Each structure stands twice: as structure tokens, then as C-alpha cells.
């Protein structure tokens, strides 16, 4: 028994050190390995717990769950990372809820406070489970629309309240199982689905991060119920870390969390400013664009999710290397919410081989745009829309943006003339110093490479 406790202790230390290492680019790689070692130690130790049964089934479950996750995790494309995080996170929430369900069926709790924690953990875990599954379905494109109907928030509140009532019945009756237990879980799961349905795709990262924090909390609560120190420490540590991350993301998007959860953005507002953008869009072809950049002294590239969808990041990086050979300074400017999550674009660029010291945050790069000859915008839209600075009526007003409009020239690579993810017209496209380069991101980058090579 002392050995098991020692292993749990070691696991907790490894988790904290691993997370610490993961928060700096230099040591990040080692961090996940440390945390992984902690997980292996804790899992093996658990097999030696006294009075355990069902080992065969347990191993089978680990093999099925672990095997499926291993396979999908290895296969998934980098662009699809956010929804994979969502689904794995949801599984964790479901597991926490399952632990609570088993304990509640048994109904033998050391004290009333443990029973309460079990019920709370079950509620949070269930919501995180079903909510994450909806988030996954939305990002995966299985579910296209936002479901909005009048009085939705009120109905959601009623469902939540009903789940709470059944939870209270469980607590006061000392959990006798049966009907209240069933209703409690059904309502909690339903609430998770209903709460996530109206949220638009653009806000999903914040929601996933929130569910991540919730799952951690559920894990910590069930850890108290089982008297399992590793679960308590790990759950609480990542619970607070996840809450902080959620806040950081919401702040980067300039949207309070309450706003994300209760507004249904992207489905309602945002059509207004279509006409008043004014002016015309001016086209440019690839050879002119290539000349402009090859003879510039500084080019700042603003990549967006559109580039990732077109799988253009490798070509773009190849193009950058050619420019650098010609003595052009090339920098990448990343908006905090570029891609589908803060940091997602960095991962995608890293995949293409772009070193991370060429990549700059919004705060670092914004002062440099006035000194840049060309800002090349590839598949980004809302994050460079100057109406966020100027038009108080715009739904994205106040969101920090990359000031690419301040560069001497702006080249926008775009597939078509439509609006971006949020459906808001972009005033940048109509500026005098902006040129549009239409085409698929990968094709355009390929053409640019050819043109530069010929110079």
C-alpha cells in the first residue's frame, strides 16, 4: 500500500513538473514525456490496489479505449487538432461521471460531504462529456448550423435546475439509486448538449477550454470521493490552469466568457456593414505580387485558417525561404485566435518547418507594420479587419487586430469574394493600398514560388 501511495506521489510531482516544462517552447517536448511517465507509474500502481476484481475486463477496456485513441490520435491532421482535444476531453468527463455513477449505485459513502462531491463531480463530468461531443461534431463539420430558438436560455436553465433538483434528491436520500439517479444523469447530459448547441464555431475553442477545466474539476471531486491523491492533485492543478487558459483565450478574442456562452455569435448579428464598406477591390496577379515582395526589404506574413485548410503552409514557407535568399526580412504575425485556437496556427507553421523565432505575437509585431513594405495576408480575414478599431457598431469592435493596413502595401490571398468565418465584411479589402490575389492558397503560393525563381 505504501508503494502505491509513493507512486501516486511521484505521479503528482511529475505532472506538475511536466506542465511547468510545457509552458516554455524550449522544454515543452520533455514536459509531455515527464507527465506521460507519471501517468504510466500511477496506472501500473493501481493494478496492485488491494481487493480489486474484474482485471480481465479492465485490461480489455484499456486496450479498446487506448487503442482507438492511439490510432485516431496518430492519424488526425494537424488542422483537426482542436476537435480531437474536444473529444478526448469529453471522454475524460464521461469517465469521471462513470466513476460517480458506480459509487452512487453502491451508495456507501463515508460522509455526506463525499456524497455531495460525488454528485457535483457527476454533474460537471456529464455536462463536459456531452458538451464536448457536440463541440467535436460542430468542428468536424458533422453539425453545421447553430440551433437558436426563442427562450432557449430559459429552457436550458430549467433543464439545469431540474438536474440540480434530482441531484439534491440523491444527496438527501443518501443515494438509493434507481429513478432519481437515472433522471439526474439524463438531465445533466441533456444540459451539456443544449448549452453547446447555440454556440458558433468561432467561439468553440473557448468552450473546449472551459470543458477542459470542468473535466479536471470533476476528476478532482471524484478523487476526493475515492480518496485518491493523484486524482485530487492532478485534477485541481489542471483545473485551475485550464480556467486561466480559458480566460486568456477569451481575453485574446475580446469576448467575456459569459458572452461566449450565452450570445450565439455568428448566427445573429454581423450582416449590417456590408454596403458601407465602400470602394472597390483591386486585383493583382501572381507575377506582380512576386516582384513586389522580392524587391521589398521587409515582408510580414499574416496566415489564417484559410491557409491551413488549403494546406499551403509548406509552400508558403518555401516561398519565404526564397525571399530570404534575396535578402528580404520575413516575419510571421500570428493573431491570438488565428486558426481555431490560440496557438493552433503556431502548431501548423511548426509542422511546415517554420522556426518559432520567426513567429511573432500581436503585441510584438503590431508596431512593425508601418515599417513593412508588404503585408501578405493568406486566408486570414476578421483578425485584420480595421473596423474592429473604427466601427463601434461592428460585432467585432474592440477585438485586438493585426494592423496590417498600416503596411505600405497589402496583398490579400483569398479564395473568393465572400466574407470570412464570422460573416463580417472586411474594410481592409477596399483600402487604396490593398491588392487582392484570388485563388486557392496552395496554388497561389506555388505560382509565387515559380515567379520568384524566374526573377
Amino acid at each position, binding site marked *: 500500500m505504501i508503494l502505491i501511495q509513493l507512486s501516486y506521489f511521484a505521479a503528482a510531482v511529475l505532472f506538475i513538473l511536466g506542465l511547468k516544462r510545457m509552458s516554455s517552447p524550449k522544454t*515543452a517536448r520533455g514536459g509531455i514525456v515527464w507527465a506521460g511517465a507519471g501517468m504510466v507509474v500511477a496506472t501500473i500502481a493501481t493494478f496492485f490496489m488491494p481487493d480489486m476484481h474484474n482485471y480481465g475486463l479492465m485490461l480489455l477496456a484499456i*486496450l479498446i479505449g487506448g487503442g482507438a485513441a492511439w490510432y485516431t490520435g496518430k492519424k488526425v491532421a494537424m488542422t483537426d487538432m482542436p476537435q480531437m482535444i474536444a473529444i478526448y476531453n469529453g*471522454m475524460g468527463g464521461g469517465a469521471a461521471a462513470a466513476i460517480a455513477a458506480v459509487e452512487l449505485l453502491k451508495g456507501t459513502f463515508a460522509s455526506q460531504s463525499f456524497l455531495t462531491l460525488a454528485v457535483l463531480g457527476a454533474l460537471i463530468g456529464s455536462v463536459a462529456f456531452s458538451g464536448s461531443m457536440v463541440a467535436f461534431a460542430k468542428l468536424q463539420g458533422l453539425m453545421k448550423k447553430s440551433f437558436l430558438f426563442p427562450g432557449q436560455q430559459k429552457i436550458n436553465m430549467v433543464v439545469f435546475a431540474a438536474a440540480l433538483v434530482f441531484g439534491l434528491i440523491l444527496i438527501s436520500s443518501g443515494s438509493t439509486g434507481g429513478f432519481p439517479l437515472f433522471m439526474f444523469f439524463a438531465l445533466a447530459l441533456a444540459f451539456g448538449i443544449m448549452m453547446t448547441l447555440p454556440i458558433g464555431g468561432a467561439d468553440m475553442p473557448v468552450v473546449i477550454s472551459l470543458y477542459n477545466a470542468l473535466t479536471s474539476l470533476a476528476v478532482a471531486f471524484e478523487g476526493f470521493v475515492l480518496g485518491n491523491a493523484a486524482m485530487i492533485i492532478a485534477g485541481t492543478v489542471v483545473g485551475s490552469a485550464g480556467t486561466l487558459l480559458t480566460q486568456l483565450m477569451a481575453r485574446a478574442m475580446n469576448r467575456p466568457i459569459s458572452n461566449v456562452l450565452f450570445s450565439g455569435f455568428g448566427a445573429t448579428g454581423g450582416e449590417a456593414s456590408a454596403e458601407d464598406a465602400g470602394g472597390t477591390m483591386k486585383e493583382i496577379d501572381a507575377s506582380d505580387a512576386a516582384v513586389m515582395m522580392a524587391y521589398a526589404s521587409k515582408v510580414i506574413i499574416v496566415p489564417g485558417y484559410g491557409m491551413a485548410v488549403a494546406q499551403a503552409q509548406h509552400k508558403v514557407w518555401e516561398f519565404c525561404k526564397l525571399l530570404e535568399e534575396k535578402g528580404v526580412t520575413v516575419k510571421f504575425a500570428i493573431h491570438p485566435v488565428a486558426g481555431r485556437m490560440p496557438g493552433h496556427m503556431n502548431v501548423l507553421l511548426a509542422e511546415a518547418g517554420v522556426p518559432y523565432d520567426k513567429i511573432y505575437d500581436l503585441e510584438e509585431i503590431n508596431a512593425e507594420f508601418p515599417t513593412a513594405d508588404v503585408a501578405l495576408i493568406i486566408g486570414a480575414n476578421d483578425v485584420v479587419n480595421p473596423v474592429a478599431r473604427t466601427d463601434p457598431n461592428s460585432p467585432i469592435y474592440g477585438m485586438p487586430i493585426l494592423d496590417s493596413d498600416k503596411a505600405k502595401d497589402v496583398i490579400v490571398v483569398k479564395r473568393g469574394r465572400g466574407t470570412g468565418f464570422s460573416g463580417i465584411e472586411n474594410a481592409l479589402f477596399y483600402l487604396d493600398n490593398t491588392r487582392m490575389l484570388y485563388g486557392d492558397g496552395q496554388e497561389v503560393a506555388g505560382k509565387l514560388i515559380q515567379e520568384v525563381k524566374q526573377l
Partner: protein
Amino acid sequence: MIEGFTALYIFMLAAFTGYEVIGRVPVILHTPLMSGSNFVHGIVLVGAMVAMGHASTDLERFIGFLGVMLAAGNAVGGYVVTERMLEMFKSSKEPAK
């Protein structure tokens, strides 16, 4: 069992630890770190194993089985995707191995 105020103290200290540990994380690591913290709460696997190990009825065994399966998915999947993401971070000064 960890009870009463001891539990509360552990909870508080662990919460502060989490906050401090990632307090100054650069934006470029937000996604990998979220994925990493997602992996760490895969420790729920340990609890699911205990719950299943002590299950005595068929219903408990079934739910326990589901729990272990989901938890293993959380832990393994979380590890694989985090590792894949972090593997790619390199500096221009120290090119790929």
C-alpha cells in the same frame, strides 16, 4: 481518506500551483498546453480502474467498463496529440535533429 479541512487545504494549494505553473505561458503554446492539461486529467483512468475493480453488480461492472474505456481514451489520445504537436517546435538556431 482525506477529509475536512485537510482536503480543503490540498485543494487550495493545488489550485494555486496550477495557476502559477502556467501563469506566464506564451500564446504559441496555448493549444499544446491545453492539450497537455487535457492529457493530465486522463489520470481519471486510475479512479475508473478502482471503481471498476470494486464493482460487484453487472450494472456497476458495465458502467465501470465504460468509464475505464473512456478514461484510457482520454489519457492515450491526449498524450499522442500533445506529443505530436510539441515534436514540431524547433528554433531556427537549433535545426531539426
